[in-house]
């Protein structure tokens, strides 16, 4: 059913791409080579899954490993493939929510940039109690600096990670040094 849903969203894809281009230009990190947004999200989807290997979550009583997408679904059906995999010995489930408040029992929350339209400040988002013990990931600029845990940043045509170690530690998650090695650590605001 979800497959049918994704296949009918060709129009919204084009819109997202146009938007990303625009934001990238704003950020000044634009690169003509990474024009293909599909590839970019494919990488990001892979990264989302890869995080499950390097991040450790406190024990939580859930049947599934939940990856929650908040806001506009920029991934399309790229994430559907993840539902065949498992993390922490639990089957992965993808949940989509319009608002962060709706999100419960999520292991990873990905905030789409679409939420900026609603003027929703990210620290605010992150203070949501339901997001405790949840890895927050976003492609929003300066996401990590603003209290998010991991931000996808395009550097030199590549998707790079910015990690806010403080935010990670505060929410009780552990991180592997290997992940730190491939990432840039950001001194950002913590989650009070």
């Amino acid at each position, binding site marked *: 059913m979800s497959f049918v849903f994704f296949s009918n969203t060709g129009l919204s894809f084009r819109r997202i791409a146009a938007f990303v281009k625009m934001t990238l230009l704003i950020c000044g990190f634009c690169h003509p080579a990474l024009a293909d947004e599909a590839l970019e999200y494919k*990488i990001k989807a*892979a*990264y989302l899954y*890869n995080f499950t*290997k*390097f991040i450790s979550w406190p024990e939580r009583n859930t049947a599934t490993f939940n990856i929650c997408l908040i806001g506009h679904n920029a991934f399309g059906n790229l994430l559907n493939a993840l539902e065949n995999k498992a993390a922490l010995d639990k089957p992965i489930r993808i949940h989509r929510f319009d608002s962060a408040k709706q999100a419960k029992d999520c292991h990873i929350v990905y905030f789409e940039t679409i939420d900026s339209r609603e003027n929703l400040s990210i620290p605010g988002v992150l203070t949501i109690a339901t997001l405790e013990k949840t890895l927050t990931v976003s492609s929003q600029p300066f996401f990590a600096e603003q209290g998010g845990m991991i931000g996808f940043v395009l550097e030199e045509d*590549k*998707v790079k*990670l910015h990690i806010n170690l403080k935010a990670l530690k505060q929410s009780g998650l552990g991180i*592997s040094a*290997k*992940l730190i*090695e*491939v*990432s840039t650590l950001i001194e950002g605001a913590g989650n009070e």
Partner: protein
Amino acid sequence: MNRLFSRLSIKSKLFGIAIFSSLFSMLLALLILITINLAEIKHKALEELQSVAGLIANRSSAALMFDDTGLAKENLGALSNMPMLLSACVYNGKGQLFTAWDKDILACPASSQNLYSHHDQLIVYVYQAMLQDKENIGGVYLASDLKPALWRELQFIGVVVFVLFIAFIITFLLTAPLLNRVASPIALLAKTAQKVGQDHDYSHRAIKHSSDELGVLVDAFNGMLDTVETQNKALLAARNNYQALYDNNPTMVFNLDLQGAIVSVNRFGANQLGSDAEQLRGKSIFNFIHPEDADVTEQFFRLCQQHPEKVHKQENRIICRDHNVIWVRETARLVDDENSRHLLLVCEDITETRLLTEKIAYQASHDELTGLVNRRQFDVYIQKLVAQVQIDNSIHVLCYLDLDQFKVVNDTGGHLAGDELLRQLGLILRHHVRKNDLLARLGGDEFGILMTHCTLAQALPAGEKLLNLVRDFQFAWENRSFSVGVSIGLAVINRSSGNAVDILKQADAACYAAKDKGRNRVHVFSPNDEELALRQGEMQWVEKIRLGIEQNRFQLYGQLISPIAENHGGLHFETLIRYRDSQGKIIPPGAFLPAAERYNMAPALDRWVIDRLFQHLKETPGFIDRLETCSVNLSGLSLSDESMLAFIDQQFHKWQIPTHKICFEITETAAIANLSYAKHFIDTLRKKGCLFSLDDFGSGLSSFGYLKNLPVDYLKIDGLFVKDIMEDKVDLTMVKAINEVGHVMGKKTIAEFVENQGILDLLRTLGVDYAQGYGIAKPVPLREL
């Protein structure tokens, strides 16, 4: 390689074995060491590389997953201080080269496809897949060079080899004297054995150094040498013994090959041939065989080869040193040895025997006085000629010569003169007969000439020539001169003439006819001659004797023999024979006995005499009792007649005559003619008790030497000496000597021809035992005794 080893000395072999085994074990150890080390190095390198790859894989997982080539490269960069590393490559999950660190030698493959861990020659390749929760996220591929590690290992092994080599040299230097202690006694033993072999001197002994197996060997070797030495000495002694026997054997012993070449000869043989054994080797035996015997010898050798199973003998001549010819008896046999056939030839010197045989043969066929062929041989030649005539139809003439007036020479000049005359005449005749003619003395004053291939026409003038020769011959003896004549009878030998005896009779008859016609003439035989001879000559007696025996025309007479010293004892007489002719006239034996002897009738006459005498003795009453000794004459032919003994024996049995009363008289000449048989004859009868007397002793051949060999009881002194002893001192001395010698030999003596009392008296003074003669008693018929 095996031959080389076998040629080495024991010492070298021991050293070789020690060196070889040490080197081999060293090499083996080295090989194992190298193999193990190489495997270990590879294994270690692989393990090391794998762990490095694992580490890199682990460290790079995040970099891969988050596409951080920089970090990945940095990770690989940490490997740059591994000197052996040639290349390090990281591949992403799709197998594409993610990042690489490499040296120029070996670049990273573009794809991870077909990559796996392995080693290729001196390079080790390791591929380590990167897994994140069983998910393949990429791979690490490392290649490392083994060369530096191997080189280090080789250096290490080199050091080990060097150390081992030093250790080996030290060990070798330490063991060398020990090996020597094992090898040198063996070498010494071998040297001793070699010395024994070279010198053939078994007195050498090996020295014992130890009591181990080698010591036992030395003892056994010395023991063997002892045995060999003893046996060798014994063998040598035996060989010398046999060699001496061989060399000094007084026969020539040859070993010849089948062609007659000398293989070996004994020393005696070599000496005989005037050379030494070494020089003779290889020479042909035919060099020494008399040329005339060469053919015979060749045949002899062939015969030996044809009949190898037999021993062959023959006699031939061999030329010895200084061209001296000897007669040898060759005894030969074919001998097979392993390789070839040889002829073993033994030559015995029989020269002396041969010469003696020849001499005897010569004497048997020749007359001693004249050196001419004797009657016996003459008969043989006639027989041969008669046989030849039947084959080739040739014509020959037999010539019979009888001297006239020879008796005059004999009677006036004595026997010596007669003998000398015969000898000289023989020489003259011999010079005047043809070369092919055969001259013989037939006995007494008779000669015979066999004129071969001669006709009567040729023979007559030849006979005349001989006649004149004899008539012209003047024989001088003791200042006297004699001349003799000859009567010659010729008989032709041709196909129609009879046998040898007939021809001889014809010639004899012709000769008689020549005499009858007035002597000194040549007469050719004609059938009338035979009649004449039969009537008037000896020849007539042949028939008369035969008839006389048949018709009892012979009569027995006896002449007394009386003891000289005293007149006692029984009757002692000699039996004599007379012929009574058709007119009743008594003929004395001198007329017919020579004919009986010549024509082989004497034995028959003797038998007749014995038979009649024994009959008379038996049948005359009281005669045997009166009789002391009765002597009977035996002719020479009877003596050699083998059946005579049996006849006499049979007569003794037939008439029952006591053997000791019979004495057989034999003449010296007859006894000597066949001495051994005469001796046998005498011995046989004497054993039976018969007596023997030797008649006419002193005339004839007369040698006292014979007396020793003739075991007779009486010696009758020839009347020729006795009748003149009153006048002739030589005769007296002869009689005296014969009497004395006879007495010394234990024989009784009887003097014949005692014609008067004077002779008897003289004989008495001489000590002669018996006398016989007209002075004692004339012969009278037996019945008058």
